[in-house]
């Protein structure tokens, strides 16, 4: 067990030590958190310096990369459903997730070898996105199957906290390297590759592929029909509908940042949000396991009203801005992992990855549509009215989600 202790020490030493006595998180979840953390360090190292590299070393406009990335984001969302089903069908969530992490790692190696053309970098960014699409659903299934149903939200909270810790560390490490060795982007790419390889190694060597809630071997592998049939399962269907309605009415953080920046110039919006998310993910997960996931999830969506309110003000001070970003971090902490926990608790064991993949896809498509609609409303009506419309829609969505989610939590009538 010494690796578990070591990994905990790597996180936030004291806070974690005090809490770990009460925090009974399965080792597998902590290990998956480690894998995500290492992979995120790797990805964010590259993401942070890529604009710098493009402009200063390749003389390219950063706008070129923005276009590339947007294209593959959509593709990655659809890959999720397929990889989720494949993981269930083959009963190999660890291996499918490993393929996703592996693809991203190979992309980093390619960056070291061939990252000196725009086309090459575009292909590597695509690799990274597709790898992310492949690994998300089977990894979430592993987290879910490794945890007791009573501790699911805490488990997802621990994973998301470690994940965003990696996203915070990556840029710091990248900048540290460039500080020591100016303009040596190759050094950043090499170290990023090593982090990605370590992530895959931790997955292969420490993560248990058949955790305790894994479906029994003697049961037949689920068919495509069974996976598709999930949408006819009343409880899961209710959850999907609620998640769709909520994601359609919540404005994406990127859009919120644009809106906030019209009011006040402050460069670190997403950093503060990410720190808040990291700090709140575990306690909010514990709260959800204790008082109920549905109320915590809905309270999380309600936190968006703070941000919407700030967007309606004519000017914004720093204190209010920070409050607003803490609210946004809290919103992520109370919705991201908690929604996965709700799904993990009601999905059958042999269809966890399929179901979680569907849920994530529905949410990301919902977010995409809400961004399009919000952008169009902003153009037609102005920011103020667009926010009012979305605020009203979110209020209605939360009210509508209450009965949907509560009904999804009731025990099934049969089976």
């Amino acid at each position, binding site marked *: 067990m010494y690796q578990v202790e070591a990994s905990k020490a790597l996180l936030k030493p004291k806070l974690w030590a005090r809490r770990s006595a009460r925090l009974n998180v399965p080792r597998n979840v902590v290990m998956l958190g480690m894998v995500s953390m290492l992979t995120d360090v790797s990805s964010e190292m590259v993401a942070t310096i890529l604009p710098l590299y493009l402009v200063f070393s390749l003389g390219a406009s950063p*706008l070129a990369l*923005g276009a590339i990335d947007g294209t593959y984001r959509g593709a990655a969302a659809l890959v999720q459903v397929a990889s989720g089903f494949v993981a269930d069908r083959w009963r190999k969530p660890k291996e499918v997730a490993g393929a996703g992490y592996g693809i991203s790692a190979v992309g980093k190696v390619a960056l070291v070898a061939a990252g000196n053309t725009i086309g090459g970098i575009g292909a590597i960014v695509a690799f990274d996105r597709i790898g992310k699409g492949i690994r998300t659903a089977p990894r979430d299934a592993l987290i879910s199957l490794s945890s007791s149903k009573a501790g699911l939200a805490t488990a997802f909270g621990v994973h998301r906290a470690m994940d965003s810790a990696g*996203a915070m560390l990556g840029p710091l490490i990248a900048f540290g390297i460039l500080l020591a060795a100016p303009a040596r982007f190759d050094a950043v790419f*090499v170290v990023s590759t090593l982090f990605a390889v*370590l992530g895959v190694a931790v997955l292969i060597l420490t993560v248990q592929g058949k955790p305790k809630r894994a479906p029994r071997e003697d049961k037949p592998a689920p068919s495509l029909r069974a996976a598709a049939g999930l949408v006819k399962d009343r409880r899961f269907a209710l959850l999907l509908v609620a998640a769709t309605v909520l994601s359609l009415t919540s404005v994406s953080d990127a859009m919120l940042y644009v809106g906030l920046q019209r009011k006040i110039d402050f460069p670190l919006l997403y*950093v503060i949000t*990410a720190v808040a998310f990291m700090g709140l993910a575990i306690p909010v997960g514990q709260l959800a396991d204790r008082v109920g996931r549905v109320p915590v999830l809905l309270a999380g969506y309600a936190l968006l009203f703070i941000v919407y309110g700030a967007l309606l003000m004519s000017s914004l001070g720093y204190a209010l801005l920070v409050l607003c970003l803490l609210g946004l971090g809290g919103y992520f902490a109370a919705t991201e992992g908690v929604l996965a926990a709700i799904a993990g608790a009601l999905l059958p064991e042999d269809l966890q990855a399929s179901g979680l993949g569907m849920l994530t896809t529905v949410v990301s498509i919902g977010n995409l549509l809400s961004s399009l609609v919000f952008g169009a409303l902003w153009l037609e009506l102005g920011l103020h009215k667009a926010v009012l419309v979305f605020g009203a829609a979110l209020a209605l969505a939360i009210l509508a989600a209450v009965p949907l989610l509560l009904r999804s939590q009731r025990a099934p009538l049969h089976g």
Partner: protein
Amino acid sequence: MGNRSGKILVGLIALCVVAGGAYVAVAALGPNETTTDARPQAGAVLDRSDVMVRAVEPSNPRLNGRVFVVDHGKVKQLPGDLSCERVYFAAGRGICMGVAPSGVDYTAQLFDAKMQSLNTIPLSGLPSRARISADGRYGAMTVFVSGDSYLESSTAFSTRTYVVDMASGKAIDQLEQFHVSKDGKPFDAIDFNFWGITFDPNDSDRFYATLGTGDHHYLLEGSIKGREMKVLRDGVECPSLSPDGKQIAYKSRIGHSSRWHLRVLDVATLKDHGVAETHSIDDQAEWLDNDTLAYSDGTNVYTVPADGSGEPGLLVRDASSPVRLPAGL
């Protein structure tokens, strides 16, 4: 997990730490300066003494971004240790946008005619454009701000354009917070991006700039004090007013590509014509006088007649960000 995989993992971690550490150490300690004498070199065409440029030498961090002037066909490095990705100078004050001394952040240094740094303004993104009004009252800077992939937010890039009060050395406003109108009606959208201010040489409160939204790149005319801008026409990026204020040089996008042709627009009639440069140019052109444009393709600085006649000529090799200087700096 077996004892064996534990040992493998510990070994692998040790290996990665050693390998990564060694690579970074070698990169940090190794010679990061090439030994060539590469530096901006004068081209053959002009014997001018009124142009400032920055050196383009990415492989040599100690030379890249240094400020030079063209002096009777010779290129001379100016004193001081400013390193700029973009530089501008007017009325005794300069703006140097670059990577901060820490190497991990971007800043703009305001400097005087002796190249002494006066003030530092933190920037929230990659340096792109810089301008100073002819009377030295206002400065303007555009940066590329990258979104971040945290929390799956969009990684699309956006721009931010600052207005600087050159006397106090502070960024006093942002175009993003100005009011925009089109055909007399308020105009706003989430994807608004502003870049490339040029100031009216006769009235520094008046300026032109670009508004990008959707597929459109509008020419804006605005007022700093009024904090407002209005759309004049489509298809104009990085405007640059001639010294007499009568013409605007700009880059015109070719279709939906990331390629541009330089063109010149008559302010009074809004009629425009191309110049003899046929290569794609991504730069905010600079007027050396009322008849001559200077611009960079990212590697060299060229000049071309503004009336569409003649041919482009090489002004300075391995340089970018040309600035017209008052005689005798």
